[in-house]
């Protein structure tokens, strides 16, 4: 049983992974292989048949499959190897890992460097501690999307959507298109979880009611879901007595958050940030293990795929440099901190090696003129608003950082002007 030996190994053939493959080839790596557990390439974009992808990366609006196929073509032309049906199920601390593939059996992969690009997964109902029964008819929005868009099956006819993450909003519209009834989208927070454009295009355009500060407090039904109880919540997100309402429905779709999928990262003993739940990386997307890089939703959950691809490409390039022995390890270790209204951000430190893009999300929405800043005096940009559902970015130039001399911490913040 011979091992598979490559220069750069990428785990996951979603948008981050494919772009990482492209990036690695661009930077001169010879043998670049992407390992994908599904039988097809593209990750979750395969099931995202709606438009809205690629405005930044390609300057036009594409569907998910169209968007990812552009990247797949790029990768193929560049000579990236694709291994489908190849689930990485075990990883060693040094970054070597094991795949399983029905035609090859179990194989070990040894790579000079690797890029983690496993993406994220959806939070299940159980994580919310909602009381009641556990009947059939409760799906995460992404699972429902797969069933409808790829398998051609309807998960239900009368739908309540809990949470206003983007996939939930998109599935609200999708279920209407397939003739289902959508009773409403219920969001426990005072603001939407997803993009405003999805609220407009997926809910408003179809007259789907959207309830803020309301949530599902009980699930009913023994065999198939028979209904849910919804209620308004107070400031502490506890249900308000007397506002309970029973909704008869056969389906509950959940869009209550995405969690970076870091089982393998943990096996490799890569340090995980408890807030983002993704690996701690520097501006070069290098994790706390020098030979392991990470990009995309496995690091921090993005709002747009375009950023995921850009980051993936960058991680791939750096992984290729590492594989070739040309990667300069960062001399500095400058901690990036978040200000009061920054809920999560990445990277969490800078090595002082290159320009840096810092991605962040706010905790509370600011619905008026505000600004993104990186202190001390590294970056400032005006914004018309800042919303938790959208990612903001800041750019730090290496020369500005160097001009500061010996700093060991910088702070990113979004605040009112």
């Amino acid at each position, binding site marked *: *049983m011979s091992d598979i030996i490559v220069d750069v190994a990428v785990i996951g053939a979603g948008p981050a992974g494919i772009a990482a493959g492209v990036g690695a080839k661009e930077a001169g790596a010879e043998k670049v292989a992407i390992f994908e*557990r599904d039988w097809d390439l593209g990750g979750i974009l395969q099931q995202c048949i709606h438009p809205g992808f690629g405005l930044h990366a390609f300057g036009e609006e594409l569907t998910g499959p169209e968007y990812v196929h552009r990247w797949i073509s790029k990768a193929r032309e560049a000579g990236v190897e694709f291994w489908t*049906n190849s*689930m990485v*199920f*075990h990883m060693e601390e040094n970054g070597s890992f*094991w795949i*399983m*593939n*029905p*035609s*090859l*059996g*179990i194989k070990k992969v040894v790579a000079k460097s690797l890029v983690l690009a496993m993406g994220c*997964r*959806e939070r*299940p*109902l*159980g*994580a919310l*501690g*909602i*009381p*009641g*029964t*556990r*009947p*059939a*008819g409760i*799906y*995460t929005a*992404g*699972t429902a999307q*797969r*069933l*409808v868009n790829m*398998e*051609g*099956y*309807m*998960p*239900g*006819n009368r739908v309540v959507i809990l949470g206003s993450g983007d996939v939930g909003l998109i599935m609200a519209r999708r279920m209407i298109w*397939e*003739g*289902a009834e959508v009773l409403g989208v219920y969001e426990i927070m005072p603001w939407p979880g997803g993009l405003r454009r999805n609220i407009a295009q997926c809910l408003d355009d179809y007259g789907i009611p959207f309830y803020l500060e309301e949530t599902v*407090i*009980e*699930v*009913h039904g*023994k*065999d*198939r879901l028979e209904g849910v109880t919804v209620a308004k919540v107070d400031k502490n997100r506890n249900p308000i007595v007397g506002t309970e309402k029973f909704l008869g429905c*056969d389906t509950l779709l959940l869009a209550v958050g995405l969690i970076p999928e870091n*089982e393998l990262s*943990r096996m490799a003993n890569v340090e995980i940030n408890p807030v983002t739940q993704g690996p701690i990386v520097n501006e070069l997307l290098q994790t706390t293990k020098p030979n392991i890089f990470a990009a995309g939703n496995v690091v921090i959950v993005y709002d747009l795929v375009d950023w995921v691809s850009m980051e993936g490409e960058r991680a791939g390039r750096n992984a290729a440099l590492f594989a070739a022995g040309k990667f300069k390890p960062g001399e500095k270790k400058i901690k990036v901190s978040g200000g009061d209204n920054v809920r999560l951000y990445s990277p969490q430190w800078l090595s002082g090696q290159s320009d840096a893009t810092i991605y962040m999300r706010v905790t509370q929405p600011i619905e008026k003129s505000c600004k993104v800043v990186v202190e001390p005096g590294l970056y400032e940009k005006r914004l018309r608003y800042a919303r938790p559902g959208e990612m903001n970015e800041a750019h730090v130039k290496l020369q500005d950082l160097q001009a500061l001399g010996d700093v060991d911490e910088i702070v990113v913040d979004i605040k009112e002007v």
Partner: protein
Amino acid sequence: MSTQYYDIIIIGGGIVGSTIARELSRYDVRVAVLDKAAELPSGASRANSGMVHAGYDDKPGTVKAHFCPKGNEMYRNLYEELDFTLNKVGSYVCALAENEIPHLNLLLEQGRKNGVPSLEIISGDELRSREPNASKDIIAALWAPTGCIINNFEAVLAFMDNAQQNGVELFLETEVSDVLLSQDKRQVVGVNTNKGLFLSPIVINAAGVHSDEIAKKVGDESFVIHPRRGDYFITDKYVGNLVKSFFFPCPSEAGKGITVAPTADHNLLMGPTSIFQLDRDKTATTRDGLEQVIEGARRLIPSIPMNMAITTFAGLRADPDTGDFVINILKRPHGFVNVAGIKSPGFTSAPAIAQHIVERMKDELKDLVDFKPDKNFVPERKHIPRFAYLSMEERSALAKKDPRYAQIVCRCESVTEGQVVEAIRRGAKTVAAVKIWTRAGAGRCQGGFCGPRVIEILSRELNIPMEEVTRHGGHSRMLVGKTKEYWFREGM
């Protein structure tokens, strides 16, 4: 509807029914197990703490005190023979106040009388040196090294699987509506079900929370079952190592209290509550119940992070008004056997009860059935390979033999298609059954990823349309139709 003939019918395929079935499969008798659920275990054997109790909880002289330590000992040997997961991790009963110490002494005394080995009271500091996450408020604990954690799903399946290998027949989704008696009402002749008549001279009532209803059908009103609900939380495996052993608070009238323990598969289990309810089938958790669980669990292990919860569930204990197990062979009607009210420590006691009741049947019911030993009885069976726990060499060998063992279905629990197909071959017909057999869908994403794949494999292997695949039988269909159908519906 058909009529089928057996020597013995067991109503209920929980731990009680399955251990008795396996015990009976040592003899050359025709046995049928009937269960109304679409998969085993259902009921209390499915939703419980997965604890094999050491046996100090019960008053010496009670039926419980007699069977519990015996059952414990049997499991400690049976798990290898029957290939189910049993972790010999021991258990602590924790005293959180001075006035609870006498209670620990009482348990110690009881345990010694009941024949529980190696019991010991240790200080809070000693406890924390072994279990650093235990609360600082715990001042002493009763250590019972023979307490075990069991995979209760695997155990029930193992007994039943082995019984089936030895000739027992299992009928699922088969609900008993009547127990049939001879004209003079002196003799049992069988049962009527939604799947037809099953005739037999012996009927064993192992119907759990419904066992008093079954007993009533033959005129036995000697006990009443009060369902007592227990709510639970399960967390991600990431925090499954917060404790190594089973943690109990000091027991109260309401039961053994809210416990914290690592499951057989290394999640963290918290619960149960103890709430009386009238409905015998409704296993819905409540907000109050779940809050009680969190509060109770944090008294023992304060650092439990609730954002690591992956699911909640509730089970119903079959609590008999007699206060003890109801194990008897009726004189009238002849042939009717009660093994009822097997509440905690029921799971632990079950194998010992099974042995006991079969011995008695051989004596008291020998006029009805000839209990001739089956020379071909095979005591061992193997579970479906647990891919997640195999060595790399074993995985390779398996994948080489059957490529479906190199195709992942459930990524959270590392379950392969080979395992799912094998579960279906052994009788799994629902999404829940596949989960119980293989753990596909039991992990941190709770079936988000493997759900559609499991539906597909069930549809393919059972040769039924996707839309007919159910979560747990009955009307629990996973899918309601194909896309685009709506627009072709009549009247559209």
